[in-house]
């Protein structure tokens, strides 16, 4: 049996390693020691591609409107805004659309126009 104090110490050491890896993969943090840089790149691209695909499925209208700009814009957004623990994929899709509007990449009056159209 392992006692509670030992597990707590193990948790702390593990937390540091896992956080370092996720910051490198998701938020352009420095590469953690001992990892193969090429493999880190492969993993980074795979995680980004998965996240981009989910946001595309959840917000097809935004992806369609951006067209060829969707991918580079999403990739720039993603590294600036890594997904926070506890956040939902839908919040990610909404935050990306908002980020695009703030950057002038999408029209800002979408909601108002939609309401105007609906009221007729």
């Amino acid at each position, binding site marked *: 049996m*392992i006692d509670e104090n*030992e*597990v707590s110490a*193990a*948790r*702390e*050491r*593990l*937390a540091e*390693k*896992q*956080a*370092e*890896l*996720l*910051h490198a*993969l*998701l*938020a352009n943090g420095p590469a953690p*020691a*001992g*990892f*193969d840089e090429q*493999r*880190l790149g*492969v*993993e980074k691209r*795979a*995680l980004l591609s*998965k*996240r981009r695909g*989910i946001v595309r499925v959840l917000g097809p209208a935004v992806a369609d409107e951006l067209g060829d700009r969707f991918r580079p814009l999403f990739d720039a957004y993603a590294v600036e805004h*890594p*997904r*926070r*623990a*506890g*956040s939902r*994929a839908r919040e990610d899709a909404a935050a990306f659309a908002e980020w695009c509007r703030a950057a002038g990449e999408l029209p800002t009056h979408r909601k108002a126009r939609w309401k105007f159209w609906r009221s007729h």
Partner: protein
Amino acid sequence: MAGIAELGVGIGWRPEIDLTVERLPGVDFVEVVAENLHAGHLPESVVLLRERGIPVLPHAVSLSLGGAEPVDLGRVEHLGEVAEAVGAPMVSDHVCFVRAGGLDSGHLMPVPRTRDALDVLVANVKLAQRNLPVPLALENVAALLEWPDGELSEGEFLAELVERTDCWLLVDVANLYANARNIGTDPERFLDEIPLERLAYVHVAGGVDHGDVYHDTHAHAVLPEVLGVLGELCSRVTPPGVLLERDDNYPSDAEIASELAAIRAVVTGRQG
């Protein structure tokens, strides 16, 4: 702990293929993604399958049991509620971490194969088990990178996990193939090292070869090489169940039926 029920050949139930799953011949059991279901209002299709007596096994993707933090009991409770709602004999998640340092990777990340990581995983699994109404099976993941300073092989790591927690194993043969391709691990050594008497069932899935990397996409056909790893497993033990996972880019009913038939042929030793 009692033995595991015979499950047969199954498929992952997904809303996009609910009618397909209902009408396919030879579906002995299904899996549902626990996070996508609410115990209070199950999809009609899942209720129908239960009424037919098809076992429904909740499969979780978000417990982050290999994460450094104590397992989130809210997530465990939800998994348990779904298990009770569908009358499941067992639930599962992965040997992985999802969240760390305040970030969510959105994916099943491999854990370092160190004593520290194993001790934490064991503590988290025991806590989850105490809060679940049915046994827990844990699955090997596909890794695109290898942690440095591993102290145990993946098989040794899982063997010790089973010994210390009495959990069951869900062996994903597509992940074994992916790891062999991507990080050079040996599926046969893995199968030699794990306690096969604790095998609950097996996952099979398709993927795509991008030259330098094999991606376990669950959105492409199952490769013959993956069925080869299943055959290797079946030469050692008769698995209680084998389940096909398809999550996207859904093919015709006929194609899914033929993949299930190919799996059944390997399990019964009658492949061409």
